[in-house]
Protein backbone atom coordinates (compact mmCIF):
# COMPACT_ATOMS: atom_id res chain seq x y z
CA UNK A 1 0.00 0.00 0.00
CA UNK A 2 1.29 3.39 -0.93
CA UNK A 3 0.92 6.23 1.44
CA UNK A 4 -0.64 9.07 -0.54
CA UNK A 5 1.75 11.62 0.90
CA UNK A 6 4.93 9.58 0.27
CA UNK A 7 5.34 10.10 -3.42
CA UNK A 8 5.05 13.90 -3.41
CA UNK A 9 7.47 13.98 -0.47
CA UNK A 10 10.06 11.95 -2.39
CA UNK A 11 9.55 14.14 -5.42
CA UNK A 12 9.97 17.22 -3.26
CA UNK A 13 13.25 15.93 -1.82
CA UNK A 14 14.50 15.11 -5.26
CA UNK A 15 13.67 18.51 -6.62
CA UNK A 16 15.28 20.25 -3.64
CA UNK A 17 18.39 18.12 -4.04
CA UNK A 18 18.73 18.69 -7.77
CA UNK A 19 18.00 22.40 -7.38
CA UNK A 20 20.72 22.64 -4.73
CA UNK A 21 23.16 20.86 -7.04
CA UNK A 22 22.36 23.13 -9.97
CA UNK A 23 22.57 26.29 -7.87
CA UNK A 24 25.77 25.03 -6.27
CA UNK A 25 27.29 24.32 -9.67
CA UNK A 26 26.34 27.74 -11.04
CA UNK A 27 27.67 29.50 -7.95
CA UNK A 28 30.90 27.53 -8.21
CA UNK A 29 31.19 28.31 -11.94
CA UNK A 30 30.72 32.03 -11.26
CA UNK A 31 33.29 31.89 -8.44
CA UNK A 32 35.81 30.18 -10.71
CA UNK A 33 35.17 32.83 -13.35
CA UNK A 34 35.68 35.59 -10.80
CA UNK A 35 39.00 34.18 -9.64
CA UNK A 36 40.24 33.40 -13.15
CA UNK A 37 43.03 35.80 -14.04
CA UNK A 38 43.95 36.46 -10.41
CA UNK A 39 47.26 35.15 -9.12
CA UNK A 40 46.81 31.82 -7.36
CA UNK A 41 47.44 32.32 -3.64
CA UNK A 42 49.17 29.46 -1.88
CA UNK A 43 48.56 28.55 1.73
CA UNK A 44 52.00 29.85 2.70
CA UNK A 45 51.32 33.30 1.31
CA UNK A 46 52.08 35.06 -1.92
CA UNK A 47 55.45 33.54 -2.74
CA UNK A 48 55.09 30.24 -4.49
CA UNK A 49 57.62 27.68 -3.28
CA UNK A 50 56.32 24.50 -4.82
CA UNK A 51 57.13 23.60 -8.43
CA UNK A 52 54.06 23.36 -10.64
CA UNK A 53 53.07 20.32 -12.62
CA UNK A 54 52.92 21.78 -16.10
CA UNK A 55 50.96 20.50 -19.06
CA UNK A 56 52.14 21.82 -22.42
CA UNK A 57 49.86 21.33 -25.43
CA UNK A 58 51.79 21.03 -28.69
CA UNK A 59 49.67 22.20 -31.60
CA UNK A 60 51.84 20.80 -34.45
CA UNK A 61 54.01 22.62 -37.01
CA UNK A 62 54.57 26.31 -36.35
CA UNK A 63 52.52 26.18 -33.13
CA UNK A 64 54.85 23.56 -31.68
CA UNK A 65 57.93 25.54 -32.73
CA UNK A 66 56.59 28.67 -31.01
CA UNK A 67 55.61 27.04 -27.74
CA UNK A 68 58.84 25.03 -27.43
CA UNK A 69 60.72 28.27 -27.95
CA UNK A 70 58.94 29.59 -24.84
CA UNK A 71 59.42 26.36 -22.88
CA UNK A 72 63.14 26.61 -23.59
CA UNK A 73 63.26 29.87 -21.63
CA UNK A 74 61.23 28.70 -18.66
CA UNK A 75 62.91 28.02 -15.34
CA UNK A 76 62.39 24.26 -15.04
CA UNK A 77 62.91 24.43 -11.27
CA UNK A 78 59.50 26.14 -11.03
CA UNK A 79 57.77 24.10 -13.69
CA UNK A 80 58.23 20.45 -12.90
CA UNK A 81 57.36 17.79 -13.83
CA UNK A 82 56.35 18.67 -17.36
CA UNK A 83 53.85 16.77 -19.47
CA UNK A 84 53.47 17.19 -23.20
CA UNK A 85 50.38 16.47 -25.28
CA UNK A 86 50.22 16.30 -29.06
CA UNK A 87 47.63 15.11 -31.55
CA UNK A 88 47.70 11.43 -32.50
CA UNK A 89 48.19 12.45 -36.14
CA UNK A 90 51.15 14.70 -35.31
CA UNK A 91 54.32 12.69 -35.86
CA UNK A 92 56.98 15.27 -35.06
CA UNK A 93 55.98 17.40 -32.06
CA UNK A 94 56.61 14.95 -29.22
CA UNK A 95 60.02 14.02 -30.64
CA UNK A 96 60.93 17.72 -30.76
CA UNK A 97 59.81 18.19 -27.16
CA UNK A 98 61.81 15.14 -26.09
CA UNK A 99 64.92 16.49 -27.79
CA UNK A 100 64.52 19.85 -26.06
CA UNK A 101 64.01 18.17 -22.68
CA UNK A 102 67.09 15.99 -23.08
CA UNK A 103 69.21 18.99 -24.06
CA UNK A 104 67.95 21.32 -21.37
CA UNK A 105 66.99 19.14 -18.42
CA UNK A 106 69.33 16.15 -18.88
CA UNK A 107 68.52 13.47 -16.31
CA UNK A 108 65.61 15.52 -15.04
CA UNK A 109 63.87 14.96 -18.36
CA UNK A 110 63.11 11.40 -17.28
CA UNK A 111 60.28 12.79 -15.12
CA UNK A 112 58.58 14.18 -18.22
CA UNK A 113 55.54 12.47 -19.64
CA UNK A 114 54.37 12.46 -23.23
CA UNK A 115 50.79 11.87 -24.31
CA UNK A 116 48.90 11.70 -27.57
CA UNK A 117 45.38 13.00 -27.86
CA UNK A 118 42.63 12.34 -30.38
CA UNK A 119 41.68 15.39 -32.36
CA UNK A 120 38.11 16.60 -32.56
CA UNK A 121 38.34 17.26 -36.25
CA UNK A 122 40.88 16.54 -38.94
CA UNK A 123 41.34 18.90 -41.88
CA UNK A 124 38.65 18.16 -44.45
CA UNK A 125 36.57 15.90 -42.22
CA UNK A 126 32.80 16.20 -42.72
CA UNK A 127 30.75 17.99 -40.07
CA UNK A 128 28.45 15.04 -39.44
CA UNK A 129 31.21 12.58 -38.55
CA UNK A 130 33.00 15.30 -36.58
CA UNK A 131 30.20 15.31 -33.97
CA UNK A 132 31.16 11.77 -32.99
CA UNK A 133 34.90 12.40 -33.09
CA UNK A 134 34.50 15.60 -31.05
CA UNK A 135 32.69 13.70 -28.30
CA UNK A 136 35.38 11.03 -28.37
CA UNK A 137 38.11 13.68 -28.20
CA UNK A 138 36.38 15.34 -25.23
CA UNK A 139 36.18 12.07 -23.30
CA UNK A 140 39.84 11.40 -24.03
CA UNK A 141 40.81 14.93 -22.95
CA UNK A 142 38.91 14.52 -19.67
CA UNK A 143 40.59 11.20 -19.03
CA UNK A 144 44.04 12.74 -19.59
CA UNK A 145 43.32 15.89 -17.58
CA UNK A 146 41.95 13.93 -14.62
CA UNK A 147 44.83 11.48 -14.61
CA UNK A 148 47.52 14.18 -15.00
CA UNK A 149 45.85 16.81 -12.77
CA UNK A 150 48.16 19.64 -13.82
CA UNK A 151 48.69 22.89 -11.88
CA UNK A 152 49.28 24.74 -15.10
CA UNK A 153 48.24 24.34 -18.74
CA UNK A 154 50.14 26.24 -21.43
CA UNK A 155 48.81 26.21 -24.97
CA UNK A 156 48.87 28.25 -28.17
CA UNK A 157 46.27 26.67 -30.43
CA UNK A 158 45.02 25.46 -32.79
CA UNK A 159 41.87 23.46 -31.92
CA UNK A 160 43.81 20.56 -30.33
CA UNK A 161 44.04 22.45 -27.04
CA UNK A 162 40.31 23.24 -26.82
CA UNK A 163 39.10 19.96 -25.20
CA UNK A 164 42.12 19.97 -22.88
CA UNK A 165 41.30 23.48 -21.66
CA UNK A 166 37.62 22.66 -21.17
CA UNK A 167 38.70 19.65 -19.10
CA UNK A 168 40.98 22.02 -17.14
CA UNK A 169 38.01 24.29 -16.42
CA UNK A 170 35.99 21.32 -15.16
CA UNK A 171 38.86 20.36 -12.79
CA UNK A 172 38.67 23.91 -11.45
CA UNK A 173 34.87 23.94 -11.10
CA UNK A 174 34.77 20.57 -9.36
CA UNK A 175 37.46 21.79 -6.99
CA UNK A 176 39.76 18.90 -7.90
CA UNK A 177 42.60 21.29 -8.67
CA UNK A 178 43.08 24.97 -9.42
CA UNK A 179 44.49 24.75 -12.93
CA UNK A 180 46.13 27.98 -14.06
CA UNK A 181 45.54 28.29 -17.80
CA UNK A 182 47.82 30.24 -20.11
CA UNK A 183 47.26 30.98 -23.78
CA UNK A 184 49.83 32.49 -26.13
CA UNK A 185 48.41 33.70 -29.44
CA UNK A 186 50.57 32.83 -32.43
CA UNK A 187 52.92 35.43 -33.87
CA UNK A 188 51.07 34.96 -37.17
CA UNK A 189 48.09 36.86 -35.71
CA UNK A 190 48.62 40.57 -36.10
CA UNK A 191 45.18 42.20 -35.84
CA UNK A 192 42.67 39.42 -35.30
CA UNK A 193 42.74 36.50 -32.89
CA UNK A 194 42.57 32.94 -34.18
CA UNK A 195 39.25 31.14 -33.72
CA UNK A 196 40.57 29.23 -30.70
CA UNK A 197 42.04 32.41 -29.22
CA UNK A 198 38.81 34.34 -29.74
CA UNK A 199 36.80 31.61 -28.02
CA UNK A 200 39.11 31.54 -24.98
CA UNK A 201 39.12 35.33 -24.82
CA UNK A 202 35.35 35.73 -25.03
CA UNK A 203 34.69 32.96 -22.49
CA UNK A 204 37.22 34.43 -19.99
CA UNK A 205 38.70 30.97 -19.79
CA UNK A 206 42.35 31.89 -19.49
CA UNK A 207 44.22 33.18 -16.46
CA UNK A 208 46.89 34.69 -18.68
CA UNK A 209 46.34 35.65 -22.31
CA UNK A 210 49.44 36.75 -24.21
CA UNK A 211 49.67 38.32 -27.68
CA UNK A 212 52.72 39.19 -29.75
CA UNK A 213 51.64 42.34 -31.60
CA UNK A 214 50.68 45.73 -30.10
CA UNK A 215 47.77 46.17 -32.52
CA UNK A 216 46.26 42.90 -31.38
CA UNK A 217 46.53 44.01 -27.76
CA UNK A 218 44.74 47.27 -28.63
CA UNK A 219 41.91 45.32 -30.21
CA UNK A 220 41.69 42.91 -27.27
CA UNK A 221 42.58 44.96 -24.19
CA UNK A 222 42.39 42.12 -21.66
CA UNK A 223 45.32 40.45 -23.44
CA UNK A 224 48.91 41.17 -22.46
CA UNK A 225 51.47 42.20 -25.05
CA UNK A 226 54.72 40.27 -24.54
CA UNK A 227 56.63 41.17 -27.69
CA UNK A 228 57.62 39.02 -30.64
CA UNK A 229 58.75 35.66 -29.35
CA UNK A 230 60.05 34.14 -32.60
Amino acid sequence: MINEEDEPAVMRWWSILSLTLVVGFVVRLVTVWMFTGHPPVTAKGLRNQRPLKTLIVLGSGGHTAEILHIVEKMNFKNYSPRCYIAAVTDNHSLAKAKRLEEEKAGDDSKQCRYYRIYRSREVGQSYITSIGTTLFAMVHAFYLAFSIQPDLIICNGPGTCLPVCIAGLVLKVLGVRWVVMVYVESIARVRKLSLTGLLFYKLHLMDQFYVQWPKLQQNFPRAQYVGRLM
Partner: protein
Amino acid sequence: MKTKGMVFVTVGSTLFDALVEAVCQPECLATLRKLGYTSLMIQLGKGNFIPGKSVGEAENIDIEYFTYKPNVAEYINSAALVISHAGSGSVFETLRAQRPLVVVVNTLLMDNHQSELADELAERKFLYTASPETLVDTLRTMRLDTLVPYQSTEPSALAGTLDQFLGFSPA
Protein backbone atom coordinates in the same frame (compact mmCIF):
# COMPACT_ATOMS: atom_id res chain seq x y z
CA MET B 1 79.56 41.03 -62.82
CA LYS B 2 79.65 40.21 -59.13
CA THR B 3 77.99 36.89 -58.34
CA LYS B 4 75.97 36.52 -55.18
CA GLY B 5 75.09 32.85 -55.23
CA MET B 6 71.99 30.85 -54.54
CA VAL B 7 68.36 31.88 -54.23
CA PHE B 8 66.25 29.58 -52.07
CA VAL B 9 62.60 29.49 -53.13
CA THR B 10 60.14 27.78 -50.79
CA VAL B 11 56.40 27.23 -50.57
CA GLY B 12 56.84 25.20 -47.36
CA SER B 13 54.58 22.16 -47.42
CA THR B 14 51.76 24.06 -49.11
CA LEU B 15 50.32 24.16 -52.61
CA PHE B 16 51.37 27.43 -54.24
CA ASP B 17 52.26 26.79 -57.87
CA ALA B 18 51.77 30.47 -58.77
CA LEU B 19 54.92 31.33 -56.82
CA VAL B 20 57.11 28.71 -58.50
CA GLU B 21 55.71 29.64 -61.93
CA ALA B 22 56.36 33.33 -61.29
CA VAL B 23 59.96 32.67 -60.27
CA CYS B 24 60.63 30.41 -63.27
CA GLN B 25 59.42 32.87 -65.85
CA PRO B 26 62.19 33.99 -68.19
CA GLU B 27 61.69 37.62 -67.18
CA CYS B 28 62.11 36.82 -63.50
CA LEU B 29 65.13 34.55 -64.10
CA ALA B 30 66.77 37.28 -66.19
CA THR B 31 66.15 39.79 -63.40
CA LEU B 32 67.70 37.47 -60.81
CA ARG B 33 70.70 36.84 -63.07
CA LYS B 34 71.12 40.57 -63.56
CA LEU B 35 71.14 41.02 -59.79
CA GLY B 36 74.03 38.54 -59.67
CA TYR B 37 72.33 35.37 -58.47
CA THR B 38 73.62 32.21 -60.15
CA SER B 39 71.39 29.37 -59.01
CA LEU B 40 67.93 28.52 -57.73
CA MET B 41 66.96 25.86 -55.21
CA ILE B 42 63.21 25.36 -55.08
CA GLN B 43 61.08 23.53 -52.52
CA LEU B 44 57.94 22.69 -54.47
CA GLY B 45 55.72 21.54 -51.58
CA LYS B 46 52.45 20.03 -52.76
CA GLY B 47 52.69 21.82 -56.12
CA ASN B 48 52.28 20.12 -59.48
CA PHE B 49 54.33 22.56 -61.52
CA ILE B 50 57.82 21.24 -62.27
CA PRO B 51 60.28 23.81 -63.60
CA GLY B 52 61.99 22.83 -66.87
CA LYS B 53 65.80 22.80 -66.92
CA SER B 54 65.96 24.48 -70.28
CA VAL B 55 64.38 27.70 -68.96
CA GLY B 56 67.28 28.13 -66.59
CA GLU B 57 69.91 27.30 -69.18
CA ALA B 58 68.55 29.97 -71.46
CA GLU B 59 69.06 32.56 -68.74
CA ASN B 60 72.34 31.04 -67.52
CA ILE B 61 70.98 30.17 -64.08
CA ASP B 62 71.04 26.70 -62.48
CA ILE B 63 67.65 25.42 -61.35
CA GLU B 64 67.35 22.58 -58.84
CA TYR B 65 64.29 21.49 -56.89
CA PHE B 66 62.88 18.98 -54.44
CA THR B 67 59.34 18.41 -53.16
CA TYR B 68 59.69 18.67 -49.38
CA LYS B 69 62.24 18.35 -46.61
CA PRO B 70 61.33 18.85 -42.95
CA ASN B 71 64.58 20.68 -42.28
CA VAL B 72 65.63 23.34 -44.77
CA ALA B 73 67.97 25.24 -42.44
CA GLU B 74 71.04 24.43 -44.56
CA TYR B 75 69.41 25.91 -47.66
CA ILE B 76 68.32 29.03 -45.83
CA ASN B 77 71.73 29.51 -44.26
CA SER B 78 73.58 29.16 -47.53
CA ALA B 79 71.15 31.28 -49.55
CA ALA B 80 71.97 34.79 -50.69
CA LEU B 81 68.27 35.54 -51.03
CA VAL B 82 65.14 33.70 -49.93
CA ILE B 83 61.87 33.95 -51.80
CA SER B 84 59.19 32.40 -49.62
CA HIS B 85 55.47 31.92 -49.21
CA ALA B 86 53.94 33.85 -46.30
CA GLY B 87 53.78 30.92 -43.82
CA SER B 88 55.08 32.04 -40.45
CA GLY B 89 57.39 29.03 -40.11
CA SER B 90 59.42 29.79 -43.24
CA VAL B 91 59.26 33.56 -42.69
CA PHE B 92 60.65 33.55 -39.15
CA GLU B 93 63.23 30.85 -39.85
CA THR B 94 64.63 33.07 -42.62
CA LEU B 95 64.47 36.27 -40.57
CA ARG B 96 66.19 34.64 -37.63
CA ALA B 97 68.92 33.39 -39.96
CA GLN B 98 69.32 37.05 -41.02
CA ARG B 99 68.84 36.30 -44.72
CA PRO B 100 67.33 38.84 -47.11
CA LEU B 101 63.74 37.80 -47.74
CA VAL B 102 61.01 38.47 -50.28
CA VAL B 103 57.64 37.10 -49.16
CA VAL B 104 55.18 36.27 -51.91
CA VAL B 105 51.60 36.37 -50.66
CA ASN B 106 49.16 33.84 -52.05
CA THR B 107 46.42 36.15 -53.33
CA LEU B 108 44.11 33.19 -53.97
CA LEU B 109 43.77 32.32 -50.29
CA MET B 110 40.59 33.44 -48.59
CA ASP B 111 40.75 35.03 -45.13
CA ASN B 112 44.36 35.81 -45.52
CA HIS B 113 45.85 36.51 -42.13
CA GLN B 114 49.21 35.56 -43.61
CA SER B 115 49.29 38.75 -45.66
CA GLU B 116 48.63 40.77 -42.49
CA LEU B 117 51.75 39.28 -40.97
CA ALA B 118 53.84 39.89 -44.10
CA ASP B 119 52.62 43.50 -44.35
CA GLU B 120 53.35 44.17 -40.71
CA LEU B 121 56.89 42.81 -41.04
CA ALA B 122 57.41 44.72 -44.30
CA GLU B 123 56.28 47.95 -42.61
CA ARG B 124 59.11 47.43 -40.13
CA LYS B 125 61.51 46.87 -43.06
CA PHE B 126 62.41 43.32 -42.06
CA LEU B 127 61.49 42.00 -45.52
CA TYR B 128 59.90 42.81 -48.87
CA THR B 129 56.45 41.61 -49.91
CA ALA B 130 55.11 40.85 -53.36
CA SER B 131 52.38 38.90 -55.09
CA PRO B 132 53.13 36.45 -57.91
CA GLU B 133 52.17 39.23 -60.35
CA THR B 134 54.43 41.88 -58.83
CA LEU B 135 57.43 39.69 -57.99
CA VAL B 136 59.58 40.90 -60.89
CA ASP B 137 58.89 44.56 -60.07
CA THR B 138 59.73 43.99 -56.43
CA LEU B 139 63.00 42.26 -57.31
CA ARG B 140 63.95 45.13 -59.62
CA THR B 141 63.21 47.91 -57.15
CA MET B 142 64.21 46.34 -53.83
CA ARG B 143 67.23 47.64 -51.95
CA LEU B 144 68.43 44.84 -49.73
CA ASP B 145 70.87 47.09 -47.90
CA THR B 146 67.98 49.12 -46.50
CA LEU B 147 66.46 46.12 -44.74
CA VAL B 148 66.58 46.19 -40.95
CA PRO B 149 68.14 43.13 -39.21
CA TYR B 150 65.37 41.18 -37.51
CA GLN B 151 65.26 41.05 -33.76
CA SER B 152 62.79 39.18 -31.61
CA THR B 153 61.85 40.01 -28.07
CA GLU B 154 63.41 37.39 -25.86
CA PRO B 155 60.84 34.75 -24.88
CA SER B 156 62.24 35.17 -21.37
CA ALA B 157 60.04 38.29 -21.16
CA LEU B 158 57.03 36.01 -21.26
CA ALA B 159 58.65 33.54 -18.86
CA GLY B 160 59.30 36.44 -16.46
CA THR B 161 55.71 37.68 -16.65
CA LEU B 162 54.42 34.18 -16.00
CA ASP B 163 56.84 33.63 -13.08
CA GLN B 164 55.63 36.86 -11.53
CA PHE B 165 51.96 35.98 -11.97
CA LEU B 166 52.48 32.60 -10.33
CA GLY B 167 54.40 34.09 -7.44
CA PHE B 168 57.84 32.68 -8.21
CA SER B 169 60.75 34.87 -7.27
CA PRO B 170 62.72 36.11 -10.26
CA ALA B 171 65.62 33.85 -11.17
